[in-house]
């Protein structure tokens, strides 16, 4: 059988392998350094490209966004990427007004509360058609306390349709604050590689119940405990805070849930606006111009462009630093190599005295470098291959969590 590699090369590789194996600690350290040098720029570019893709695609698919006057960046990040709770500065009234103009479709958002760190997004059923979301299982929410999970949450928490989740308390020490609501998973979205994968979607009314704007309790007429009652007469029955409220919506108590006050005044954190055409968009934007306007309407794509520009500027700086670190690391590796040669002087002297030709000595040293580079490249490639399928998740984790 003919060897695919010439014998001299085989011998050089064999001797090189023996050297590297004998000095395994040094070898592994060098391989680790080179692996980092090789893979870091690739991984950085991979994640930045993925971030750009996710940010841009989400933003360009959202034509306009209405929110509280202030930082347009905060508005876009909280409404499109669910980064933080957003101030509930809008109302259903505004949503209705926009809808009645006939200029656009609207999707209201109430971004507040969490389920174990994952954002609860109160919205309408139109959200799923607007985002063209597919369902991996189940359906959209129909009843109070129904919830739809993003694909990654379901996978992370091991949840399926029919399971229950609880909203998190905002403040354990605030007895007058919201209390956890038990919700039922009725649907799980397909993986979309967007912020939706990490969201818990509920009907607006469900999110208002969590906020304490709506509640359910036993019929006051049936309560015998007088300490619960503030007022009871022929026309009015009022209970005090001692009245126990349901923290779970069931088939039996569903009809007891109700909302007080005018729901048109109920809060929203943002409104997604999908205008029919450019003229409609311009007209809608015109409604938010003026000193007395307390809201703003933004084009998320423009806002994200500014963010991306900043990210790229930072990336340039990071690239520069990475290059500097790479140069320093290479210098250090060169020093290690030089010191290694010094330490191996007697070995090289022996080779010379035995009659080893210069080319053979050089080939031995080159074989060592080659093996190290092959190992480092293999590790780098493996590292990148491992990260590749999770790049979306890692990007969202870094940017949006």
């Amino acid at each position, binding site marked *: 059988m003919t060897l695919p590699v010439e014998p001299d090369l085989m011998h050089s590789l064999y001797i090189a392998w023996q*050297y590297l194996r004998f000095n395994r600690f040094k070898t592994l350290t060098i391989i680790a350094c080179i692996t980092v040098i090789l893979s870091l720029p690739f991984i950085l570019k991979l994640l930045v490209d993925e971030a750009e893709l996710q940010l841009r695609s989400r933003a360009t698919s959202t034509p306009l966004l209405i929110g509280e006057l202030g930082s347009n960046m905060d508005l876009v990040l909280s409404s499109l990427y669910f980064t933080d709770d957003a101030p509930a500065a809008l109302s259903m009234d505004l949503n209705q007004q926009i809808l009645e103009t006939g200029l656009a479709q609207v999707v209201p958002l109430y971004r507040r509360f969490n389920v174990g760190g994952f954002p609860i997004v109160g919205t309408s059923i139109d959200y799923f058609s607007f985002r063209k979301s597919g369902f991996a299982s189940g359906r959209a929410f129909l009843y109070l306390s129904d919830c739809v999970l993003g694909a990654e949450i379901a996978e992370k928490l091991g949840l399926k349709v029919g399971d229950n989740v609880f909203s998190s308390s905002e403040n354990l020490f605030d007895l007058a604050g919201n209390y956890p609501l038990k919700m039922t998973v009725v649907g799980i979205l397909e993986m979309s590689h967007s912020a939706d994968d990490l969201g818990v979607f509920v009907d607006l009314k469900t999110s208002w119940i969590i906020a304490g704007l709506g509640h359910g309790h036993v019929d006051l007429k049936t309560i015998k405990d007088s300490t619960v009652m503030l007022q009871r007469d022929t026309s009015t029955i009022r209970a005090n805070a001692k009245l126990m409220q349901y923290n779970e919506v069931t088939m039996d108590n569903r009809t007891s849930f109700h909302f007080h006050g005018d729901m048109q005044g109920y809060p929203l954190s943002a409104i997604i606006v999908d205008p029919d055409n450019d003229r409609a968009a311009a007209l809608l934007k015109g409604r938010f111009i003026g000193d007395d306007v307390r809201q703003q309407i933004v084009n998320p794509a423009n806002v994200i462009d500014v963010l991306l520009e900043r990210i790229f500027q930072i990336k340039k700086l990071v690239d520069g630093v990475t290059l500097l670190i790479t140069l320093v690391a290479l210098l250090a590796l060169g020093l290690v190599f030089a010191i290694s040669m010094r330490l191996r002087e007697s070995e090289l002297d022996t080779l010379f005295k035995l009659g080893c030709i210069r080319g*053979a000595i050089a080939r031995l040293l080159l074989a060592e470098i080659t093996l190290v580079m092959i190992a480092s490249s293999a590790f780098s490639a493996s590292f990148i291959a491992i990260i590749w399928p999770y790049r979306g998740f890692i990007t969202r984790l870094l940017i949006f969590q």
Partner: protein
Amino acid sequence: MTILELSQLEIRYPHDEFHLNVPSLQVESREKVALIGPSGSGKTSLMNVIAGIMLPEAGEVHFDGIKVNALSDSERRQFRLSRIGFIFQDFGLINYLSALDNILHTYRINPALQFKKSVIERAHSLAASLGVSSLLHKFPHTLSQGEKQRLAICRALLTQPQLILADEATGNLDPANKNKILEKLFSAVDEHNATLVVVTHDHALLSHFDRTIHMDDLTGRARSHA
């Protein structure tokens, strides 16, 4: 037949006061020669010149009709690989290679020498004859001085050289092993029609050699009693 001839040899080191003059030295083919002298008298330097490791300042070195000092660097390397078996004073073993790989090392680093199965078999045979068969998988740093020396001898003999140069080949061995090593060296000389030159301080071994050369006699200096 004279196989090794040195004439008007002058050995110096740059920036060093060391100076060795050898007017004449002749060694016959298959002769076993002991080279003795006090420390610093130039024994190792002389061996290096004979092997072509270093060049003399002046003079000539002839081996088997080849003018060694006239060869180029690569020719002298090839000369050493193919004709000389050198046993170094510090053994010259490679610490990251096993004992067997050390013995075979010359064949692995020299493209002109064919690395065949018979070479490996010969290596095992040499190791057995020198009593290091059980050590072939071990690394030099785990071996005793005597074991390292026997390994170095195996490596030198593997290429079946014409000239064996041994610098203190028996220095670290007990008397019984010294005789055994010498016996092996002598049988290799006879087996391969090789010539043997051994640097030694051990006067007890001199009677085994065909001829003893004192460095002082060689250089014409008054003999010292070091």
